[in-house]
């Protein structure tokens, strides 16, 4: 099913790093969302969504990150996105203001350090 998008999961302490490689459209978004949500435990503090190697997303990807943000907020968990500026997903997200609601970082290291988000510059 998810030939288009592959989800990789990695854990560093109380942080889950979920990487999505490939393309997100509404044929795979639900599947990708489910895999990410399943990976986050109650005691985890932070989810970092690494979209460095995401080459395309449509509005299904926007719904996906807003839904994730809402769920994590309910559980008082932090949510950060890693996304290089000038990529197609970055442009898509910035048009509808994802960066205003979810901190976006350019690299994993910056996201881990929790420094200044790219969208807050």
């Amino acid at each position, binding site marked *: 099913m998810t030939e*288009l998008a592959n989800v990789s999961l990695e854990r560093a302490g109380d942080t889950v790093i979920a990487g999505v490689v490939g*393309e997100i*459209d*509404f*044929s795979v978004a639900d599947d990708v969302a489910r895999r990410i949500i399943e990976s986050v435990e109650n005691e985890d503090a932070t989810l970092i969504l690494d979209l460095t190697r995401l080459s*395309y997303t*449509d*509005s*299904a990807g*926007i*719904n996906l990150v*807003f839904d994730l943000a809402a769920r994590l907020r309910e559980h008082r968990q932090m949510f950060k996105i890693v996304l290089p500026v*000038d990529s*197609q997903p970055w*442009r*898509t997200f910035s*048009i*509808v203001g994802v960066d205003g609601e979810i901190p976006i970082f350019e690299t994993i290291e910056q996201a881990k350090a929790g420094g200044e988000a790219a969208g807050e510059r």
Partner: protein
Amino acid sequence: MQSSNVTDQEAAERLRRVLRVTDVALAHLSPEALLDELLIRVREILDADTAAVLLLDEATDELVARAAKGLEEEVEQGVRIPVGKGFAGRIAADRTPVIIRRVDHRNVLNPILREKGVRSLLGVPLLVHGRVLGVIHVGTLTERVFTENDVELLQLVAERAALALHVRMYERERMMTETLQSVFLPEALPNVPGLRLASRYLPASTSAGIGGDWYDVFVVPSGEVALVIGDVAGHGLHAASVMGKIRNALRAYAVEAAAPSEVMTRLDRLMKPLGIEELVTLLYGVVDVGLSSFRFASAGHLPPVVVTRDRARFAEVEDVDPPLGIGRSHAFTEHVVPLEPGSSLLLYTDGLIERREESLTDGLDRLRKAVASAWHAPDPEAAIATVLSALVGDERPSDDIALVLLQLEQEPTSVDLRIRAVPGELVTVRRALRRWLAFAGTSPIRDDVITAAGEACANAIEHAYGPDGGWVHLTGIRDDGTVELTVRDAGRWRERVTRRGFGLSLMQAMMDSVEIDRSSAGTSVVMRKAVAS
């Protein structure tokens, strides 16, 4: 004397027996078994004491004893007779029957014939289409005068035996080649939208000619199309097995490493640990997802030919890297050839151009001209056939040849796509648009058009139809630097509350204009955007 009638009858009987020599019962035998059976019958028919077959080894121009009756030592000792020398050598050289009434050391080279006490000999060439395959001879231990009749009989046998042998040898060679090909050459070339591919492997003409040439074409995980052409020096199974090792290692590295130079550097380092001492030239490169360039690294391999708008040229390769395993481990240089719709790329091995009496430069020049003349071929298969007939002709090549031809389809000027209204078809829409918008490179403008079209199609899929589904029709035209996209469905808009309507925001932000027309007959969305071309 009443013997003439008897002789006629005898002759008729002998002839019947000759015709049995290559009858159906022998059809399934291997070349060795066929020769054995043949000699038993020949000895009987001609009432001889010995019979032997020597086959020509083209590589050394010698006759090699392959089967014998009454002279088994000849085969066991692997007797080799130079063509032109001695009894058998003379038959092969002159292509005529030779009769020796009294054997002595002047007319027979082979000591075994003398030691065995063979007194009289008759031999004829094994000919197929005027080509000497070998020699068959019979002998007697008592002196005998071989007659014209005997010569004719043996020639008849030789004719049939040569044909049967030729077919079997050819079949066996073909089987070996096919086995190797099925192991090392790709079963099928990948199907990549916008690309047309063809390839060919031609084994060399000699029976040992299966060489170390190979090609490979596959799609790496990033979506790039990988092309490989390589040549392991030497022939035979050893060269082929070296080729197999390198081919498999390359495939493994190509999945891990993105850059061709990196793949090549890793392969180079692998030569010593694998114990490969042969000279290996290799070219490995990838065509990017947008089909706009070929990035490659070359280990001493001949340069690819690029055809653009009727002009064939060699890819410029400065700083030629040496063949693999030359010793000093070094970083390989990466070269880039820009590609455009309609252009072609040919990778090949040196067997395609090397002629004994010709310099490499002349060979390359002939290749360039042949490729240019194949430019108008309707498809890559036909183009390869044109190139091969110009350079190789009908003859089997003296060295093996591998070649891969890649053609980029002409850029479509418009897009017309009908998809089923299911989410899984959205990727089809993106693929078609990427190809159509290839002229815009990998620009944000192109991304915007593709994203907006995807949203319009997703809306139609999500909102237009019930569980029965339906169709979505996408058309795109380019006019005067403006792209116009139309997405139509025949459904009735059903507003859903499950998702937020980011789609329309994206379409409006990414396109210059968006017009939506909803009617009872369906919805049509027309979007325009200026693109710099």
